[in-house]
């Protein structure tokens, strides 16, 4: 199992933070450009799916799987979007994202007076904690050597 990368967007679609663990190919565009496309894609899928889906989608967790990877979207009721790309076998990603939200974002950004919520995250403590939590998760640990 492998964890590829993580995008965090705020409610206005601004990229707050980006981190990657396994990424073999870069997109060849700027991070801003790439983030804009990622957010736009999620936004479009979400609004389309909401229109056609017969069931209530307000649970806040959504994934889709291609034959090569899985995209996991965890959206809080406050509309923060955590988008984590993994391989198709990764387990427990919803729990992992919940943990990132509660134990990393809330503790180190929300409670830190020197971090503004509407600005991209620069806190080193946040990045370090995020890395720690991801690397401790089974989805990361059990990746083949």
């Amino acid at each position, binding site marked *: 199992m492998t964890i590829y990368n993580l995008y965090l967007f705020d*409610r206005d679609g601004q990229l707050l933070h980006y981190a990657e663990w396994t990424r073999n190919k870069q997109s060849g565009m700027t991070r801003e450009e790439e983030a*804009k496309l990622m957010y736009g894609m999620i*936004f479009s899928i979400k*609004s389309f799916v909401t229109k056609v889906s017969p069931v209530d989608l307000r649970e806040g967790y959504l994934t889709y799987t291609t034959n090569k990877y899985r995209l996991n979207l965890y959206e809080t009721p*406050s509309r923060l979007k955590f988008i984590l790309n993994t391989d198709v076998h990764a387990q427990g990603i919803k729990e992992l994202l919940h943990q990132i939200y509660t134990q990393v974002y*809330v503790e180190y950004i929300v409670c830190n007076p020197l971090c503004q*919520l509407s600005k991209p995250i620069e806190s080193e403590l946040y990045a370090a904690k995020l890395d720690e939590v991801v690397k401790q998760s089974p989805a990361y640990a059990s990746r083949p050597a």
Partner: protein
Amino acid sequence: MSRQSMRANDPKKVSGELFTLTYGSLVAQLLKDYENVDDVNRQLERMGYNIGMRLIEDFLARANPGRCYDLRDTADKIQQAFKLYLGVSPSIGSWSPGGDEFSVVLETNPMAEFVELPDHCLGLRYSNILAGVIRGACEMVQLEVMAWFIADQLKGDNVTEIRVKFVKRLEDAIPAGED
């Protein structure tokens, strides 16, 4: 950073006195910095709004309350949050006939434990920060509300009462370049 040094008894709690006195000191500072009490009231509301925006994230993370489907849900959650964060249980009531307005009623107000309003600040809404917190927190979950004090024990009322009125639902932001 190590977190082992947290308090042995309950790591998630602090002394109510420290809280009340710190808030009191902040209000005193604002009264010093601004010339009239209306500005102080506004600034307190503003600060509450900022706190609400952050507090809601903690509330969602900790209480995992799920989404609200109507205003009664929201009122319940506000009640729950008062208990969780300030250790008091307000009652919810006085619903408007249309169901778009309700009151949060506090028997004791933890913000104002040691406070007596001096005569020259009668216009001060001492606990106005709470109204701001409610507005800020609701806005983050796509609810625009108004919140204001209609009774205050510091002014001789029997209870402290905050009125909350639903304004509208907010929609998701559309990404740049889409329509």
